[in-house]
């Protein structure tokens, strides 16, 4: 699908971080837009960004850290090439998401919030993707997949791995 883009975009430098922060710091309520912009650009929020954001937005470092850690969406470590989110909410549970979760953890050999050793996949829980009539639902980067069976999950991860080989 056209919207797929890997969350790992660039390695960061302090100058690049500062440029992203400066581009957002004057908005009203600039914190979340700034954090989103950093994560969208670099795939995660590097520790080095915390004092820079604190300085620019006139917060303490502790406050910035508190905000980053409050929101499930923000990560402080580089994710795998594909971030796989499995919906854990009730509508997906009613059509087998608990089995899908168990299968995914076993197939990838990782638990939630972990990344495979080859940095291919990061597995995350998500609570609802709004595809509740056609679950179980899985999101990979910006694409949502419905009616996901364990077999289709394996096929999907195979395809995602294969894409990487082609790119290399």
């Amino acid at each position, binding site marked *: 699908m056209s919207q797929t883009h890997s969350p790992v975009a660039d390695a960061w430098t302090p100058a690049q971080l500062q440029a992203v922060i400066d581009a957002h710091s004057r908005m009203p309520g*600039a*914190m979340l837009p700034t954090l989103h912009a950093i994560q969208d650009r670099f795939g995660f929020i590097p520790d080095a960004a915390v004092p820079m954001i604190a300085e620019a937005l006139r917060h303490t470092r502790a406050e910035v850290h508190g905000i980053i850690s409050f929101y499930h969406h923000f990560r402080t470590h580089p994710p795998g090439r594909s971030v796989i989110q499995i919906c854990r909410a009730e*509508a997906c549970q*009613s059509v087998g998401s608990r089995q899908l979760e168990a299968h995914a953890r076993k197939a990838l050999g990782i638990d939630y919030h972990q990344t495979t050793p080859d940095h291919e996949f990061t597995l995350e829980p998500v609570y609802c993707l*709004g595809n509740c*009539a056609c679950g179980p639902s899985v999101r990979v980067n910006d694409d949502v997949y419905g009616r996901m069976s364990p077999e289709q999950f394996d096929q999907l991860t195979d395809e995602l791995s294969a894409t990487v080989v082609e790119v290399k």
Partner: protein
Amino acid sequence: MAITLYVPRDTTARALGADRVAARIERGARARDVALNLVRNGSRGLFYLEPLIEVDTPEGRVAYGPVTPGDVDALIEAGLFEGRQDHALSLGLTEEIKYLKRQQRLTFSRIGITDPVSLEDYTALRGFEGLKKALSLDSQAVVDEVKTSGLRGRGGAAFPTGIKWQTVHDQPPGEKYVVCNADEGDSGTFADRLVMECDPYMLIEGMTIAGLATGADQGYIYLRSEYPLAHDILDEAIERAVAAGYLGDNILGSGRTFHLEVRLGAGAYICGEETSLLESLEGKRGLVRAKPPLPAIEGLFGRPTVVNNVLSLAAVPFILDQGGQAYADYGLGRSRGTLAIQLAGNVKRGGLVELAFGTSLSELMEGFGGGTLSGRPLKAVQVGGPLGAYLPQSQWDNPIDYEGFAAFGGVVGHGGVVMFDDSVDMGDQARFAMEFCSVESCGKCTPCRIGAVRGVEVIDRIRAGESADKNLVLLTELCETMVDGSLCAMGGMAPFPVQSVMQHFPDDLTPRQAATAGGTTC
């Protein structure tokens, strides 16, 4: 003449392969030298038929679905481009599909018919007529129209929208805001997403009218980060609306101003609570605020703020265009107008059903939904999201309205209906309700923050057979403490599903083998 063919572009249609279907159709047309006008429309909300493709014919639009990429060549051979109805996936005239025809679509009258970002399509179907009406009235008259409609907050709290607007309207002039709560986090709900992905100008129009009514000239749509497609479509629609003069400075030459911006949440369920949402918009952790002060008096950045759900704001263009009474003519008791019901979970025919208040769950789950997807008997249904009670069969015939549901401990909420067949372990569901609360609690108040963690532990002990009777008493008291002592609806309602399991499905909350107890941790 070119053939006009529609392939939806909403999240569900795409999740089921609509993009690949569209690509195959284009390839098929090229191979046959057929001039094709492929429109990526919104979804009709008939998700059990997605991807549902349509073709323009002299008789009207005809539909096919659910179409997989592998079906496309055979469909073309069977006369897809001519709109022939010989293929097994043929559904006849779209408007005649019973599931759609039996609905009362006031808010969702355009979804699936139009290209979501086409201003021409929107205005051809009465788009911006409500805004024009509002521009011709004084602000009090706009508020009065919304009061007449009887519209109540569709996010779940069901507070009268007109009264909220009146409060903001009556605050002294100065900086005021309209904030749209688009943090649709309840499992089983997708109606907000459908508005934003399939008819975004309706939300833009509703917010602009709210701005005119209350004297606010800045609006924010607080959108959950789980909806990237809605984000793209909203941004594009806002840009086009500004360029065409429907939004921004000097709206339609009136001299009035309303600016609108989408702000992304970051995966916190609690930010669907309005005060937590405002904290988040201000750039803080999403901690719930104590009320009073009401957001209508001290809201975003301490200023008077209207906070409305997507569906409340989306109902407003109809109300201004057709009159508040036209909306109030639908409904039951104090629940006026229509409710967007979302049939989800283990359902054969899932999708959006917009009907006047007063229908029953039985009619929805069987008449529209066709029972479970698995074909097994229905066991329980959770209405109103993860904080809503699990309802047993004895409650499925009650008419749906806010007061009627509240009378038996039910929650209409945002209208999500999640169906479960008889394979569900209600003990698992009770445990999950507490687990979800422990993950998503903002942590500000103790009953919610600690109670949810203790709730998981106590349920695990009951199921492991550790002093089950004593622990059931403890769980009962814990639920009461959370309901009575929590600061907001998160901790105050998280016990509802647990209490409903204790009351209606007690056999599922009894000791069982420890080896199989518990769900997953995260």
